[in-house]
């Protein structure tokens, strides 16, 4: 059965979001974007995305917040920066994707149980607690929280990691974890003072 194409109406438009996005990219830069598509063309994962980066730039500028923040595009971005260096208008597309991820998490409008979003959260939880990342622990938490089944195919690789001792036996923590946590709390209180 053919899919009913979605028509965006004025009711779908969020002016506040459009203004926030304009501010984020910079009005002049955003206006210079000619939607040439180099960002999508250079993106190594564009073929897996529901919207390419170019369409995200366009939809965000026009204020279609739900389409942007619920798309899988921002969560498939690997931060390879190909779009950023290729953009003829010097728009830092990768940094824009980071800002969209933060906004989506803040608003809770990211795809539910999307493993990339889960991963980012678990990553920050571990680093906040220990000061360092432990890949095995991160992977275990990721699998637990986003569904173990999807990772069954990786069991062989996990065995390799264990067999070849490519993991740390100790729990990786820093001595000054209490200071680090205080640092993170202190800067968070001032977050509103810096843009985006």
């Amino acid at each position, binding site marked *: 059965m053919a899919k009913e194409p979605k028509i965006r109406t004025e009711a779908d438009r969020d002016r506040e979001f459009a203004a926030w996005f304009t501010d984020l990219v910079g009005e002049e830069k955003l206006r210079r974007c000619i939607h040439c598509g180099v960002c999508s063309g250079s993106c*190594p*994962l564009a073929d897996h995305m529901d919207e390419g980066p170019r369409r995200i730039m366009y939809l965000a500028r026009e204020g279609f917040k739900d389409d942007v923040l619920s798309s899988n595009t921002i969560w*498939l971005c*690997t*931060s*390879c*920066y*190909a779009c*950023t*260096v290729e953009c003829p208008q010097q728009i*830092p597309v*990768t940094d824009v994707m*980071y800002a969209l991820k*933060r906004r989506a*998490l803040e608003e809770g409008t990211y795809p539910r149980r999307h*493993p*990339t*979003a889960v*991963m*980012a*959260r678990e*990553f*920050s939880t571990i*680093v906040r607690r220990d*000061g*360092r*990342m*432990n*890949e*095995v622990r991160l*992977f275990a938490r*990721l699998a637990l929280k986003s569904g173990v089944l999807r990772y069954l*195919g*990786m069991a*062989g*690789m996990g065995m*390799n*990691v264990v067999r*070849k*001792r*490519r*993991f*740390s036996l100790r729990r*990786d923590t*820093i*001595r*000054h974890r209490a*200071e*680090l946590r*205080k*640092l*993170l709390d*202190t*800067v*968070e209180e*001032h*977050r509103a*003072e*810096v843009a*985006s």
Partner: protein
Amino acid sequence: MSDYSYYPGCSLKGTGRPYDESMQAVFAALGLGLDELDDWNCCGATAYMAIDEVQAVALAGRNLALAAATGNDVVAPCNACWLVLTKTQGKLGDDVALRDIVCGALGATCTAVNGDGPQPLRIDRDVAVRHPLDVLINDLGVDALGEAVTRPLDGLKVTPYYGCQIVRPLATFDDQADPQTMDRLLAAVGCEVVDNPYKTRCCGASQMMIMPDVGIDLVSLLIADAVARGAEAIAVACPLCQFNLEGYQRKALKEAGLEQSIPILYFTQLLGLALGLDPKRLGLHRSFVPVDSILGRRAAHV
């Protein structure tokens, strides 16, 4: 007194252990002193930036402050750590409001211990964040490296793969589109460098761990192209690239309709072999893909 501060980053203490081991062995063999930064913390990688920008800057900022106190350049072998630290340095320089918040908080909450006891942490100078490729090419030089070689890798066909984040968005020590530093180091130790048109294309990064079905095409392309060009090994300079190309190789080969595996080695492991170092000290026994073919290619001691 060491020549460089060393920021290994979390991966080099885990899946990237062979990079840590070979990096330290090679620097020692070349007479370059490395001193691991005391009590360094995670750089935040790409994940923390998706959660909170100011906290991400503070995380990296603490490491910059620890490095500033040493007076040395800091060497960061992981591409992601290198970029996060380099980018953070730039941000703190450009954005006064951000710098005030982060530096103020660092001084108020964090300490480091030196001869005079605990001192508040400060970023009181610009720290040069260096990738080992940069250090070996620009501080040591290919001539000095070549002179130190005792077991040249006679004609071993190696293709260099640089990955993304040491050339994008900032290319501070190499060409952005066609980097050459690894090519030159490999040639200096006797390798036959096989051209790699995909040398800076994405390996899938953390997506490979999160959603391997999405990134496997990227790994497959890199492996298949290297094989088609006759490379006997792929040399890498980042723990995530190494893990993706090696850990998912069986799946990638299947995808490409290939059978013969190809070793994925840190460039420091190849340099170490040519310097006559024990393969075990270089972490070669931790490879998932067999590396006997590489070990057999070393020339006898000269």
